[in-house]
């Protein structure tokens, strides 16, 4: 417990921002999904750290649920991507511009 909690905070913030940056930068839908996973993982890390430092198990339980949701999300997301690949033969999100105002 010698590591101050602020360092965990800093680490997850940086990871989160990398994830956000990835979502903004990349165009491949699968990679976007990976970047979202990075974001969720940074949250997981933060929750787990707070949980230990608070001495409260709720945070770690929350992490389980985030994992549950992440798994479900990935399943749905990849199914969507596969379906789209069949129709468009690409996973580049910028080519999906049928809908523009």
């Amino acid at each position, binding site marked *: 417990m010698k590591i101050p909690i602020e360092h965990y905070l800093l680490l997850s913030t940086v990871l989160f921002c990398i*994830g*956000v940056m990835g979502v903004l930068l990349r165009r491949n839908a699968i990679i976007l999904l990976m970047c979202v996973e990075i974001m969720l993982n940074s949250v997981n890390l933060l929750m787990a750290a707070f949980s230990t430092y608070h001495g409260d198990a709720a945070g770690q339980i929350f992490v389980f649920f985030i994992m549950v949701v992440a798994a*479900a999300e990935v399943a749905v997301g990849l199914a969507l991507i596969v379906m789209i690949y069949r129709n468009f033969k690409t996973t580049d999100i910028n080519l999906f511009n049928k809908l523009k105002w």
Partner: protein
Amino acid sequence: MKLLIGLSVLAVITMMMGLFKSRKFVLPVVVLGLLGLLYIASGYGCYCEDKMFGMYINEHQFLKMFDINKNSGLVGLIMISGLLITILAHKGFNYTENHRADMHALMLFSMCGAIIAVSYTNMLMLFLGIEIMSIPLYIMAGSNKHDASSNESGLKYFLLGAFATGFLLFGLALIYGATGSFNINQIYNYTHNQLNVSEGIFKMGVVFTMVGLLFKIGAAPFHFWTPDVYTGAPNIITSFMSTVVKIAGFGALIFFFNGMLHPLGEEWGKTFAIISAATMILGNVTAVYQISLKRMLAWSSVAHAGYLLMTVAANGNNVPKAVVLYLAAYSLGSIAAFAVLITTGKENFEDYNGLGKRNKWLAIALTISLLSLAGVPPLAGFMGKYYLFTTVYEQYPWLVIIAICTSAISIYYYLKCIIAAWFKKGSEDAVQVPLTTVFVILVCILGLIALGLMPQPVLDLA
């Protein structure tokens, strides 16, 4: 709790029916089930004798996680809107005939999520509720597999939804770090006692949660996905998104800010006021330029989100009432409009030319629903707006002025559609309306008029 268990059991049964290819019975079963559940739900307060998991938990355990009673108005609204859209789906799911049962099951799951999202007492349930609501929606939005825009809408919604979830979760994690709990009562105590320790973290958490929730309800500046997703999704799913999901999103938002963070209202109230003004202006002004009814309804839903955000900013005692009334009026109005859209199957204004000659009643229904959305008395939309304005006026008079200016703009695009329906020449073939749709439209229109004339019962609900 019974309501939620019943709803999930109904969803599972529906799912099973798909397995046994009993497609014809799906709709009656779902409708009857929902009616039964509504009947149960009307006798709120019986959750306590719930013994379904009696071995492990007592009612106290449920209350620690969520409490349906605290928000019965919105729960009822979700159930009723869900029921109406389910009946509409008789026609609306034609594009995916093979998956009729699956789609109904998904819709019911989504409703479960919506109910959880408006009745959470623990941040974990907020998160789970929003996810249970959203994941079926991603699938439903993309469910018209061979339609490119539906695919695109599904993927866009999914990616942005997941992105927003990231923000929401980061916010929740920071709030947890500052307060040490996920329970809203404890967080309320924390805010109430104004403990200044680690305030920066707490505030940052609130900001991130706000971003996540604003994404979900489609408020400016996070609204950009709304029109695309709404337009691309199949009509029936769009009607679901713009009603049930909006209700749940606002329920969640209001209990987060006006319930849990009530003591800090001064601090975030102004932010919400500005966001609300921006949303109203953007939504209404952009809606003016649309040439498609569906897209216009999408932008107008952004605009309505702006009006509703006014209440969040106001943070007064009457907020829940105002929100329930406004959401009821808004939901009934948009369901009626979407029912017309689904019946004709056409999206552009031009396709509505001469609707009055093709089917007088359909045109009357469209007119009444649009006028209600615009807030013309004596329809429900007016009562909603009026109550909203009275609630907000004392704190943010300038917001009310912006709201009425944008309302005046909004009347233009609603009128454009009404004009197309009545005054323009178009095709003359009669439109056949299936009996189920007639029923839905009738309920919505009567509801709009009844709510406009006597809103008292709905106000008592909240």
